[in-house]
């Protein structure tokens, strides 16, 4: 048995090779006619995080990221089938490097941090 809010929401996401890929910022349930709801996916990104503080904030954050083209991951959905729970962490079979969840990390590394001597 797994408690979604306690054991999944806000847990550390580990991608392939153990790269840290953010936190589980949201959980998506599929509501089915005449059947119990089913977990469809987990979400990570600034928009699902903001949505928890208020839907209005989430819309504004999303517009800001999209309009300005900010190097930030707005929202990445990972199907529940790819999710494994390992101890207190959540492992997903995704390559973080090429994933949208790493937009900010890549941008900072390539444009800023990686250009400083000794990086």
């Amino acid at each position, binding site marked *: 048995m797994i408690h*979604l*809010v306690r054991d999944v*929401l*806000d847990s*550390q*996401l580990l991608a392939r090779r153990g*790269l*840290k*890929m*953010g*936190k589980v910022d*949201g*959980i*998506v*349930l*599929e*509501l*089915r006619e005449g059947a119990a*709801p089913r977990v*469809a996916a987990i*979400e*990570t990104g600034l928009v*699902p995080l903001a*949505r*928890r*503080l208020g*839907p209005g904030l989430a819309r504004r954050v999303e517009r800001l990221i999209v309009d300005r083209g900010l190097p930030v991951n707005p929202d990445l959905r990972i199907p529940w089938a790819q999710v494994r729970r390992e101890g*207190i962490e959540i492992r997903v079979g995704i390559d973080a490097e090429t994933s949208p969840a790493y937009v*900010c*990390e*890549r941008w*900072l*590394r390539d444009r*800023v*941090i*990686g250009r*400083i001597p*000794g*990086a």
Partner: protein
Amino acid sequence: MLLCQSSELGRSDEFLVPLTLVGLVTLLVLASEIGGVSLALQLATGIAFPWWAPAVALAVWLLLWKGTFGVIEYGVSLLGLVTIAFVVAAVRLRPEITELGRGLLPSLPQHEPAHYWYIAVSILGASITPYLFYYFYSSGAVEDGWNEGHLRLNRVVATLGTSFGGGLAAAVLVVAALVLAPRGIAIESCEQVALILTTSLGRAGFWLFVASLGIACFGAALEVTLAVAYMVAQGLGWNWGENVKPRHAARFCATYTVVVALAMLIVITGVDPLKLTLLAMALTAATLPVAVVPFLFLMNDPFYVREHCNGWIGNGVVLAIILLASVLAVVSIPLEIMGGS
């Protein structure tokens, strides 16, 4: 297909409040530490402290950028032993044992009660700074790869270390009481503080004070900066670590870079580091409930700590201290600010 998101399931955004509050207060703490090093350099050279802030910030940043965790941990602790000078001074001043004993008992202030409690709260805040939780978990437990076998050693080190620190702090108080009080000196500026070691240690006392101030603050600045970066990176789930190459933890490194720069800007404004330190520590005490109570939950959760949950004595003491500290802080900070120091 109808989808329902977790915003409708429940809200667990508890982390955002401690993150913001502890983050802001810790930034002030960092500014006080950078200010402290700059002040030591001012005492040594005569050049005003704000001018030193960029160099100090750069030195902190460079050590974090190039250094590994071991270098920072052992280097700073070894150099920090210079603060033992205060114990030497306290012993050489030959305090009366009966007076010392009486000083150990808490007493009510005879004058300026608001200011007295403000300073008391600052000392409490300085003793239980929440950044240390993030720092020790990250640095020790993860970077040094501790396991359950380190638990006993850690208890010993924590007890001895805290007693050592407390002893040092007591020595500073004893020296201050024996040197300043009989002469009727109420500290107005840091230049005056620098003289408290000269009575018993002569000219060397001045330089020992400068070295103690500079090294202790520099070490704290490194720890505080790392603690903020650890807290942000772990809270948001980024790659982090002082022992990995900066390019493999870009957001972590960007965080400490920005944090050091912001703290430097605060020092450059020329705000008195002594006053800033007192304020930062008092605010630390005020934020203890939001900063420490979440840890109390973790420390009592068998899911995370299995059979090592806190006992009721531990929980009781922690709760009592943070309640006392935060209530005193909430009362004394406004009084101090309104009263003007």
